[in-house]
């Protein structure tokens, strides 16, 4: 596999598209931080001990926090975890001067914690997570391995299994993938094109046969 190799984690049966979940964020707070404090949409992860939470809401609170390290022949592969989020998110949706505050300090801890010294615009894990998935089975970009991997290479993955998916019977998967001009490997689109194309050809052949065998006549339609 040629670099860059993308590392994805996949969660199944995880409803990031649940309405309660999707709404539970505040775009203004993410952009302006504590200056913006009308964060009613974030309930119940709005404030803790009377202090507002930054970033607030269920999405941030349930941040995915498994970590993966990759070892090839005893040498750890460098995983680049920068530039994994959409650029517009980093530049315009998450504030450059907004720092996590009072995050994961409640009695019930959901997912990962954030380094309070790094501004939100640089917390790319969070940014990736906060762009909610459309379907209950989804992949998110974890990072990139920027070295080529050869066939027969044995890679040992150390997983720190923090994130609770047992309660709702979800599965976790880890995927390594390259990408082409079209994006990732997409069997479906190719197959579907072939299927629809060939059925069109089939239909047109049938039509042609019918037309030749039974030419249209005007006298009896």
């Amino acid at each position, binding site marked *: 596999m040629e670099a860059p190799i993308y590392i994805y984690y996949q969660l199944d049966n995880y409803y990031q598209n649940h309405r*309660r979940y999707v709404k539970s964020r505040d775009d203004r707070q993410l952009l302006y931080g504590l200056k913006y404090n009308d964060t009613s949409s974030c309930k119940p992860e709005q404030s803790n001990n009377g202090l507002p939470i930054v970033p607030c809401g269920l999405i941030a609170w349930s941040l995915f926090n498994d970590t993966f390290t990759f070892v090839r022949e005893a040498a750890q592969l460098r995983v680049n975890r920068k530039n994994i989020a959409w650029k517009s998110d980093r530049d315009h949706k998450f504030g450059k001067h907004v720092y996590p505050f009072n995050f994961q300090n409640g009695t019930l801890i959901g997912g990962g914690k954030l380094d309070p010294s790094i501004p939100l615009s640089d917390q790319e894990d969070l940014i990736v997570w906060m762009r909610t998935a459309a379907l209950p089975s989804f992949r998110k970009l974890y990072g990139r391995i920027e070295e080529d991997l050869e066939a027969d290479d044995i890679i040992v993955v150390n997983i720190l299994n923090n994130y609770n998916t047992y309660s709702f019977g979800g599965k976790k998967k880890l995927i390594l993938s390259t990408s082409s001009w079209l994006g990732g490997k997409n069997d479906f689109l190719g197959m579907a094109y072939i299927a629809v194309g060939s059925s069109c050809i089939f239909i047109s052949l049938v039509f042609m046969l019918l037309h030749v065998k039974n030419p249209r006549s*005007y006298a009896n339609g």
Partner: protein
Amino acid sequence: MSDGRRKKLHFSKIYSFACGKASFKDDLSQIGGPGFSRLVFCNEPDCSEATSRNYGGNYVRTTKYTLATFFPKSLFEQFRRVANMYFLVVGCLSFTPLAPYAAVSAIIPLIIVIGATMIKEAIEDWRRKKQDIEVNNRKVKVHCGNGIFNYTEWKNLRVGDIVKVEKDSFFPADLLLLSSSYGDAICYVETMNLDGETNLKLKQALEVTSGLNEDSSFQDFKALVKCEDPNVNLYTFVGSMDVKEQQFPLSPQQLLLRDSKLRNTDYIYGAVVFTGHDTKVIQNSTEPPSKRSKIEKKMDKIVYFLFCTLFLMALIGSIFFGITTNEDLGNGWMKRWYLRPDDSTIYFDPKKAPTAAVLHFLTALMLYNSLIPISLYVSIEIVKVLQSIFINNDLHMYYEEADKPARARTSNLNEELGQVDTILSDKTGTLTCNSMEFVKCSVAGTAYGHGVTEVERAMARRKGSPLVHEVEDGRNDVEDPASAKPLIKGFNFKDKRIMNGKWVNEAHSDVIEKFLRLLAICHTAIPEVDEETGKISYEAESPDEAAFVIAARELGFTFYNRTQTSISLHELDPVSGKQVERSYKLLNILEFNSSRKRMSVIVQNEEGKLLLLCKGADSVMFERLAKNGRKFEEQTRDHMNEYADAGLRTLILAYRELSEEEYKAFNEEFTEAKNSVSADRDEMVDEVAEKIEKDLILLGATAVEDKLQNGVPQCIDKLAQAGIKIWVLTGDKMETAINIGFACSLPRQGMKQIIINLETPEIKALEKEGQKFAIAKASKASVVNQINEGKAQLTASNGNSTYALIIDGKSLAYALEDDIKSKFLELAIGCASVICCRSSPKQKALVTRLVKRGTGKTILAIGDGANDVGMLQEADIGIGISGVEGMQAVMSSDIAIAQFQYLERLLLVHGHWCYRRISSMICYFFYKNITYGFTLFLFEAYASFSGQPAYNDWYMSLYNVFFTSLPVVALGVFDQDVSARLCLKFPLLYQEGVQNVLFSWCRILSWMFNGVCSSIIIFFFCTSALEHQAFRKGGEVVGLGILGTTMYSCVIWVVNCQMALSVSYFTLIQHIFIWGGIILWYLFLLVYGAMSPTISTTAYKVFIEACAPALSYWLVILFVVISSLVPYFSYSAIQMRFFPMYHETIQWTRLEGRSENPEYCNVAPQISLQPTTVGFTSQVEEKRNH
């Protein structure tokens, strides 16, 4: 409000006038009683007693709204529609946290839609307002003291004002005629706007006021009028006038109604009695019944169906939502912990899952609201208005001679025009021009005139013989139809023996002289001499009468002046051959009425001879002839029958000389009868007249043609070919009606006639005995019997021969009774054509209702006169002919055309197009909303039915309003399956509308099914193609925002391309709208995506950053569009190829350029023979073979 005021007046007046009762006769005794309390203080509207009565002003408002009531009233109208109400509720709910999307995005489309409709209402009302302003500000002369009359606006008139109305102007209010420019205070009034009659009516003031014919005489005039309260009855008026301390009874003869016109009179003075909304004409104006087309009614059903679907979808969602929510929390153990089910709001609380599910139901109702097309109603309204503009501007329906275009007065019924099953037509003025032409006459047993009538031509065609008209003296005259155009209106008489004064050389020139003189004297017409040219034209009560006077003028007896007591003629003297002036002293007029069927005048000529001149129907005239006056009876009778066969209206002319004594005796009796005030006055007058109208000497007979309008037979033929049934409802005699029917080829040759009438000897015998009950019983039995016989004939023939049903008014009255009307209807439907003669306006309306209710099909009524109003309002579509008979029919019609022949284009072209357009438009509308709405539902299934929309809020709210609505409107306005020329060439195409093939449930449901299929393809292909994998080279995956945008793009592409596939007639506008819709979507994405992320949320830079550069986005769209259109495309290809509908066959023929080849044209209609037209088509076939 006004009712309350009137009521108060009643109570106050009951007592004060009770004592005066006894002194009045009959009606007048009611004055002062309830309903007769009005007091008018003439010439003193300012006096305290008058002002205390507080009668309303003369301002008339016809607008639906005022400035103050516009908003509440029009909003109320809007929200009476279920769909709009639903959207209002959704809009309100969207402000609660229940809403799956932002409130603004739900409200804005509603505001746009409601706003558009309200603007339309406002514009329509503004037009009415402008008309009101014009009417209310017309000027009239009003007495303002000291005998001075000044101009003032109509709206300022008050009850009691004295006004002076000048020639040819309208009366500003209901006036009491006081005096006129004529010495005997008469005036002529034209009441065309009231009853549609064009003839002039004579009104006469009381003698006591007739002297007030100068401005100054009103200086001291005072009178008190007591009369009835405002009411709707145009022909009654009860009141009395106190003037000079005497009381005089008033009658309708003194009342001049608003909206009628003063004619032939220089000026009149009148006192205002009823103003503004109290006037009879305004009291009479009723809101026309609002009609809705069948398609719209069906559309409502579809909307209800969609509502059910919506509820079902929401219900399914809520159940699943309730279950999953309930499972989230159990025994202190959280399943989907990331949703914090332990600390939830009521909407998602697992502890109260049922409540949450119910609330979710509401959310889901809002979420799937796109299933109900919010813009459907407003789009349809816009489309219909534009369609009516097309109809109004169609040059092929513009009648140049009268400068009258077609006018769609309501745009509601355009598509109904394409579904007409039966046409009920009036005859006079609709099929015929209602301009009578003098064509033939028979004098002294000799027939004159070689004119050939339309009916004769039709008969000749039927017989298949060349048209040879034989004249008695052996000359053969082959008439060329083109040369038959009359040069003089009302006169189409050609005979060299009589024309240009040649009659003096005829054998019976003395009889001819008398004949012509009678024509010139015996009438009630009024001459109008054009001062510049010296030409004389006539105002007559009926066009027949005008035709007679004109004929007399053309043949040398010019009637040029009428006074109350004399008639003056220019006569051609047979001896000297010069024009001489003669004047006849007019002694009595014995007026025409329907029971007498004749009119007479008694005149004294210059020699002092007393003459009674009489003209009348043959049925009454022959029996009144003297023994020595029957010289030419036999020949005349023969000629009469010939004329009747030729479809002409005939009258017999006769005269007698009176002796002085005889006249004296008669005159005394007659005057006495005339002056009697008993209820049977009219009968007494008739009796006296009868006594003198006897022993007449026959002069001859006249024949007047009621000309068929241009192109009527061809038009009827086309309509019949289109499978439309045509019934004629007329007031005319049976023979005339049948003849005109034949002229229009309504009952065709070879059709068997079923005639139902009560002219049987038994009933005639009973009638002579005069037992009403027995007559009724026997008549009914006879009608039932005849109907049963007819039905037996029908079933016996088993569809082998076609029948024409002809029924007269008397029988119709029985046939329309509740217990036999269904039988009658069955018989009538079984017949290919139906003619009802001698039918009254009410019967016309009843027949219309019977057919409408009985068949459930679309009924079109067409007529031109006031007697057709009931029929027009009762029918599904009322078409008014804006011809000569005034505006009454037009005012109560839905669409007005100038000529019957335009009906062909109106129905076959516009009706067909509109029907097609509206039905495809509605189908497509539902398709596009289902395609879109169903993707939302499918997405829900993948979001555990939590109510999260797949799309951004604004995408959702703009879907119906912007991205997809304009192409539909373009489809509704411009689409046409085949061109107008081919529509007319293949009239059977019209059956598509009659049988409603384009808007059948099957078709609607298959479009809906197509929508469901498309949405399934869009959703699953999009999700499968974009799930999991990196979206582009950078490795990013697809989130909710991008998937939503992609899916939405697919929906927009698919529905717009689907539109492009189903449009059969592309114009530039269609291209602009279809592709513009897609471009608009991308422009919107660019603009919306460029806004700050707090506004655009998930759509922020989604196109510019994520979608546009990613090839997979475009590939997915291409793929989805192709695969969701392939099913429809193959379906329509198969259908077009193997099971073509009729219009498709025509399209095919046209495409191959064979539509010009007659062989193919004739063959084509057979392809899609519809079962219901089989019986009829055999007729067409038969005709073709001829």
